[in-house]
């Protein structure tokens, strides 16, 4: 699992690549902490190269959402494959995030 962080057009963007499973979650959790300093900037989670997301991965996204909302930052998820989008749908999480 690999993440890359960039600031693009005033947005905080993180690219995810590989499998975000239970084994990868602790390291990814640390890497995502940089997004917690969002302070009103929008966050984009680019999942174009994400192959798999487990419950642990969903929890990381939800934790980020909990931090970002009070700071008036939007969390956008982009590039989700149909399979991964279905994971969000069947767990009822699609309407918590904004998809691009």
């Amino acid at each position, binding site marked *: 699992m690999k993440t890359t962080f960039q600031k693009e057009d005033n947005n905080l963007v993180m690219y995810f690549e590989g499998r975000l499973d239970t084994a990868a979650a602790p390291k990814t959790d640390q890497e995502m902490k940089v997004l917690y300093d969002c302070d009103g900037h929008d966050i984009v989670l680019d999942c174009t190269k994400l192959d798999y997301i487990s*419950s642990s991965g969903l*929890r990381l996204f*939800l934790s980020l959402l909990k931090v970002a909302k009070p700071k008036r930052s939007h969390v956008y998820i982009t590039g989700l494959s149909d399979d991964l*989008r279905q994971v969000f749908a069947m*767990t*009822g999480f*699609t*309407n*918590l995030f904004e*998809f691009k």
Partner: protein
Amino acid sequence: MNQLSPHGEVLMEQYRESIPRFTQLCGQVYDQLSQVMREQGIELNAIEHRVKTEESLAGKLERKGDKYRTLADITDLVGLRIITFYTDDVDKVAAIVNTLYVVDWDNSVDKRKLHQLTSFGYNSLHYICRQKEGPLSDIPFELQIRTALQHAWSAIEHDIGYKGAVKLPPQYRRQFSRLAGMLELADDEFSRLRTTMTDYRRQVQTLVKSGQLDEVPLSTDSFRSYLELHPFERLNQRIAAVNQAEVFPASLMSFLPILEHFHLETLGDVQRFVDDNADDAYRLALSQLAITDLDILSENVGLQNLCLAYVLKQGGSRDEIIFVYDQLNGRHASNASLADAILQQAASLPFANKVTQQ
């Protein structure tokens, strides 16, 4: 550049030396007020606070410097303005202020009561206060309390400058009067509306609690009250048990347009919708989740599956399923593939055997 008298210069020097104390007091009162209003559940439009600028004080001293014997006679060096949404809350906030601080009644004024029948203008409550104790209790500060509409009136009045040297012709004064009257009326009506809405909510809550759901039309307020009964909790727990999942809290209000689209008109209709479709919603969720190890679910999951199961049982089309997802997720091209996946899942479920893929 202001020309100050020697006495004015002395006051100005005292002011400069006192700025750190003024700033401290200003921040302290702001924090106190913010906290107390929050604790009392009073929603405010804003609390503004400022220490009078040197430029503004110089203007004041130049105009009427002789009036002030000491700096303490100038009561608005520290000023705060509490802007409420409703006119009822002005009095409520004033009562709270009265308990928090020592109010100098001789110098405080309720400008709302000063209006003559023929006058125009629309003013607020001005209190001159002091802290009850502590090192800053010697400094007076001014507290203005007004509604958002009074605030808007005051800002526009200031911008137009009708209080300036030029006396306005009667036709314009009349225009001001009409507007002031209209705003006062609007303030009163907003307060009345709030009271009416509160009464309505109480009635709805009473009907919901007593189980008279057929008497309650489906609306934003009534649905919110209904949700307090946790009508989907049992279904959510059943679904969560599939993978021993944790249920993550979420708002269910986004489902209201879908329920209205299903022509559910009362909370009784919603309850029957739940009772009639809960088993099938569970089966639909089971068919999706059992083959995964997903152990975190949103609180939406029960109601979402209820809606999908309902559409499927009605012989629902792909478009109807897309409609559900569009309402929940916003319009997105991928909602079509979600709909296709549901139709595929549903093909193996007995309750949905009437489904026709378009």
